[in-house]
């Protein structure tokens, strides 16, 4: 176990304990002002967890939007209403049944989460260091080959994109993880591989403006190795900038531009809705 992993675990457990404890106080404390302040603490602890997940942009937005804006709104309303003691009685009748339902639900989720999560995914599978080793390895194998000028650049880019996704898919991965094998692959197996790329590339076409689908008939083993190297390097770059504002922003303004615009429209609708709700009707007595 290395030092980095150790500090990571300590940071996670500390942030998780803080988040759970303060979330419990949000639910159990009597005074709404204290509830709101504990909610701020919960949100900050979750921002720490976001940083541990390499979600730097989300951590920043969490602090700015949630802890900054939403909580100010909560506090404003709590203090504006100035609820009296009588209204602060803690529970509704039927507490025990309701709490029981919540507990059963939480335990079910917990079992599902821990059972599924521990079994299925390991971070090591997509470790940047591994991808880096992979790229180095491909380059080493490739250097044994003479330079080829056969494949045009558009094809290589399209295939690189494709292989990028293939690296994530365990089934495809087993085909691609050993570039040394491609050199010695039996002809039939190599053709299978080429076929897979060919069928998937047609789906890719049009999404990334790269050009017409490539003709894979004269796609050689050298081309395949070039592609693996390009794909590995692209993947490495993608991993290095994972979760940064630049990466999330690029995604928001390209593939998810429509949801993004819909979100802005939703915000506009909310502004108008709140104005209509909060406005006093003409003729209503002001207080």
């Amino acid at each position, binding site marked *: *176990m290395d030092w980095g*992993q150790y500090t990571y*675990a300590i940071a*996670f457990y500390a942030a*998780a304990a803080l988040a*759970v404890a303060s*979330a419990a106080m*949000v*639910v159990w404390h009597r005074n*709404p002002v204290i*509830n*709101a302040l504990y*909610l701020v603490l*919960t*949100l900050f602890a*979750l921002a720490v*967890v976001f940083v*541990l*997940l*390499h*979600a730097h942009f*989300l951590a920043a*937005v*969490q602090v700015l*939007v949630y802890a900054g804006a*939403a909580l100010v*709104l*909560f506090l404003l*309303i709590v203090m504006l*209403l100035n609820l009296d003691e009588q209204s602060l009685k803690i*529970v*509704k*009748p039927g507490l025990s049944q*309701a*709490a029981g*339902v*919540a*507990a059963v*639900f*939480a335990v079910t*989720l917990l079992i599902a*989460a*821990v059972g599924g*999560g*521990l079994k299925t*995914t*390991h*971070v090591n599978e*997509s470790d940047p260091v591994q991808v880096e080793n992979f790229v180095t390895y491909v380059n080493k194998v490739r250097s044994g080959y003479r330079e080829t000028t056969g494949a045009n650049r558009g094809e290589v880019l399209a295939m690189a994109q494709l292989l990028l996704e293939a690296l994530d898919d365990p089934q495809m991965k087993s085909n691609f993880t050993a570039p040394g094998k491609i050199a010695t692959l039996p002809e039939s197996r190599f053709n299978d591989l080429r076929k897979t790329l060919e069928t998937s590339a047609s789906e890719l076409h049009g999404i990334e403006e790269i050009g017409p689908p490539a003709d894979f008939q004269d796609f050689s083993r050298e081309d395949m190795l070039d592609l693996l190297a390009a794909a590995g390097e692209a993947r490495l770059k993608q991993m290095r900038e*994972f*979760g940064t504002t630049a990466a999330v922003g690029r*995604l*928001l303004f390209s593939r998810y531009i429509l*949801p993004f615009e819909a*979100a802005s429209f*939703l915000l506009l609708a*909310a*502004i108008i809705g709140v104005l209509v*709700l*909060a406005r006093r009707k003409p003729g209503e007595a002001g207080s």
Partner: protein
Amino acid sequence: MMEINLGHFLALSAVLFGIGMAGVLTRRNAIVIFMSIEVMLNAANLAFAAFAFFRWNLTGHVFVFMVMVVAACEVAVGLAIILTIFRNRATVNVDELDLLKW
């Protein structure tokens, strides 16, 4: 124990969701119920971010962004509704607000 993987993050998410759900079901103050809903939304966000990280897929972050937008709208509109209710009924206790009860 010391190796933190997806299960740990999902477990934290599940615990927070359960706490939030308990709050929604047991509290009677509408504002505190809203805060509990925020806790539940954040638990869901945490699950999104965890899956995004362990799959190296940024789409999860876009989802969290959208959830945050919806949460912001929900807080603004919800608190405005609570304010209007308080003006009319002088209470924010959900068990006293039975106007729509059949």
